[in-house]
């Protein structure tokens, strides 16, 4: 699977990088695919309600009413119709890219299985909603869609009579059919909305609205497209003739030509195999699943910060079980934990300054204890011998430093930059472990663990607990959010930062670091 994921991921990283040049990070469309899909849903819903006001459910009336909207009331109903179509297409486009991107990021298994699994019916209902919409126009495209869809459905031996037989002759169809189709066309999106809600149940603080600027840009673009290239109908349906050439909407109907080449049974088999594969993909074992975070009750004061910060809703609070005078204690659900360590970074006990006990936090990653992070930091500091020493705290999915800066910078990595307690920065600078600190992680808006970059920024900006202390000189801290392909840019930034740090007056160091600190606690 990695062989498929890696090249796709590489393409995404490149394109995301290009988009980062022109969009503010938070507006990058590729970082907002799910939210854009939601936004399109609302545009489709609102425009659909307006279009429905003028829609007549009848064999001849349906086409006529849509022609009225397109030609006579083009300035409003026509635009609404175009928005309805193009936003629907955009929803499919964003959804497909969203699926491919999440797959390439390996966000479909392990703790994320539920979100992926519930995405499968979303896919089906999006297409059901769109295809029934095309049916309602009752033009040549609708005739084609109706015949091909029902010929495919007829293969399933659960219908008493052939559904396709309703579309072979002008007198075989009646108005009630349109009543049925409009019912499906309204109910399917409502069910879709319900599944979307379920889809996000395991995502903490999901982003369902794109940033305002991106939303405005996308809506205005759709509006311009609707004016410049309005959606129109094809010739009216005529069941006495065969549809020979049809202008397909390739977003929704792109697979329909297969019905001309494959048998209905083969296509059913393909559909079952494809959707079945998608549904069971989460059963594949995670590439590397580290042990879930563990609460060290002795050091947990029940502050709830880890509960607030966990992007996967993997931590809950429950009444204290050890009799200590705190209201609650944190409990980790191992099934939901992805071992990102963001909870460790949020814990007020995660302070490397601790003197009277071993460095143990209230919540820890068994595979990467906080004491290990401190030991690695000391080791990295020891490896620095140049005039200006830069310590780089980075995350596994982000950029790495190159050999060019090896003489002045050393890197300490962790699963997510959100694992870094701000106290570590204070400690490293005040103990003279480095002259400057670089904090790096995934590109903003594109954190592998959703919130690591956001929470780190907020903690360093003193907008979220645990906050970086005021005494820490901000001139000695650089934040640089970068993807794995931005290694050179990171090196350049470090070089520039080292130069600027070298211009600063020598910092007041706190205590001199004890030589035996590596791997041990302070006394």
């Amino acid at each position, binding site marked *: 699977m990695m062989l498929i994921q890696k090249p796709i991921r590489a393409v995404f990283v490149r394109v995301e990088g290009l*988009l980062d*040049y*022109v*969009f503010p990070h938070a507006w990058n*469309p590729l970082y907002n695919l799910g939210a854009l899909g939601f936004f399109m849903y609302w545009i489709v819903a609102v425009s659909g309600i307006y279009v429905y006001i003028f829609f007549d459910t009848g064999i001849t009336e349906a086409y006529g009413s849509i022609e009225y909207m397109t030609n006579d009331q083009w300035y409003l109903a026509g635009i609404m119709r175009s928005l309805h*179509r*193009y936003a629907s*297409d*955009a929803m499919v*486009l964003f959804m497909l890219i969203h699926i491919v991107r999440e797959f390439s990021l390996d966000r479909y298994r392990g703790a994320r299985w539920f979100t992926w699994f519930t995405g499968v019916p979303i896919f089906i209902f999006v297409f059901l909603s769109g295809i029934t919409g095309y049916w309602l126009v009752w033009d040549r495209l609708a005739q*084609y869609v109706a015949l091909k869809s029902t*010929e495919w459905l*007829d293969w399933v*031996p659960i219908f*008493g*009579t*052939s559904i*396709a*037989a309703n579309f*072979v*002759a002008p007198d075989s169809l009646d108005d009630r059919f349109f009543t049925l189709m409009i019912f499906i066309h309204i109910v399917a999106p409502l069910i879709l909305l319900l599944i979307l809600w379920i889809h996000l149940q395991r995502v903490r603080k999901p982003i369902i609205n794109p940033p305002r600027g991106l939303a405005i*840009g*996308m809506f*205005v*673009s*759709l509006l*311009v*497209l609707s004016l*410049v*290239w309005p*959606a129109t109908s094809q010739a009216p349906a005529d*069941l*006495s*003739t*065969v*549809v*020979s*050439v*049809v*202008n*397909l*909407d*390739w*977003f929704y109907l792109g697979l329909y*030509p297969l019905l*001309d080449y494959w048998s209905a049974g083969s296509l059913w088999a393909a559909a079952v195999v494809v959707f079945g594969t998608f549904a069971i993909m989460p059963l594949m074992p995670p590439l590397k699943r580290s042990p879930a975070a563990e609460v060290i009750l002795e050091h947990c004061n029940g502050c709830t910060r880890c509960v607030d910060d966990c992007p996967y809703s993997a931590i809950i609070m429950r009444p204290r079980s050890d009799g200590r005078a705190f209201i609650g204690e944190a409990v980790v659900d191992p099934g939901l934990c992805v071992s990102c360590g963001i909870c460790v970074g949020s814990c007020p006990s995660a302070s490397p300054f601790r003197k009277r006990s071993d460095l143990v936090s209230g919540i820890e990653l068994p595979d990467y204890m906080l004491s290990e992070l401190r030991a690695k930091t000391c080791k990295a500091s020891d490896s620095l011998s140049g005039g200006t020493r830069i310590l780089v705290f980075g995350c596994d999915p982000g950029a790495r430093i190159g050999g060019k800066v090896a003489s002045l910078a050393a890197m300490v990595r962790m699963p997510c930059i959100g694992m870094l307690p701000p106290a570590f920065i204070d400690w490293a600078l005040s103990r003279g472990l480095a002259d400057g600190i670089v904090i790096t992680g995934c590109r903003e808006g594109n954190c592998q663990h959703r919130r690591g970059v956001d929470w780190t920024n907020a903690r360093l900006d003193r907008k979220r607990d645990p906050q970086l202390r005021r005494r820490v000189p901000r001139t000695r801290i650089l934040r640089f959010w970068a993807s794995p392909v931005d290694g050179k840019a990171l090196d350049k930034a470090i070089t520039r930062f080292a130069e600027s740090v070298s211009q600063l007056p020598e910092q007041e160091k706190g205590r001199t670091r004890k030589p035996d600190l590596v791997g041990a606690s302070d006394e």
Partner: protein
Amino acid sequence: MSNVIKYAGQALVYGAIMAMLGYFATAPAYRTFPEGYARITLTFSHGGKPEGGCRRRTAEEIAKLPPNMRRPFDCPRKRVPIFVQLQVDGSTVYEASLEPAGVQGDGPARVYKGIRVAAGPHKVTARLRDSERTEGFDYEREVDVVLKPGQHFVVQFKAEAGGFIFQ
């Protein structure tokens, strides 16, 4: 990068997305049926005669039945398969024995078959057998038609209308 270039870049991205949406919403056109051909569709849903035939009930038997079930004939549920044949210009283009629907085999048999033929004059013959006979047909109809390119010629069957209907 200056703001002007950034805004221009954003406009380019939005423009590319919209161009993609606008184009693929209707293009490229797809030919689903070849030029110079017409289509004949054979479609109907029809139940064969009860297998084994019906037996007339005696007056005593009828009297013993509940009032709502007093029918003069006692028929088995299972129906015979329907044999259907469609010929164009004397060549058999479709022939099948259609099993009745339902677990008990008491539902109608159904067929839906599309056949592509070159446009022009054709002799279309439809035959159907829905009884227990093994030779010959219970219904047959033949028609000479001149099919135009793209015409959809439908062959249906309605026993109550006397047999095959050509449209």
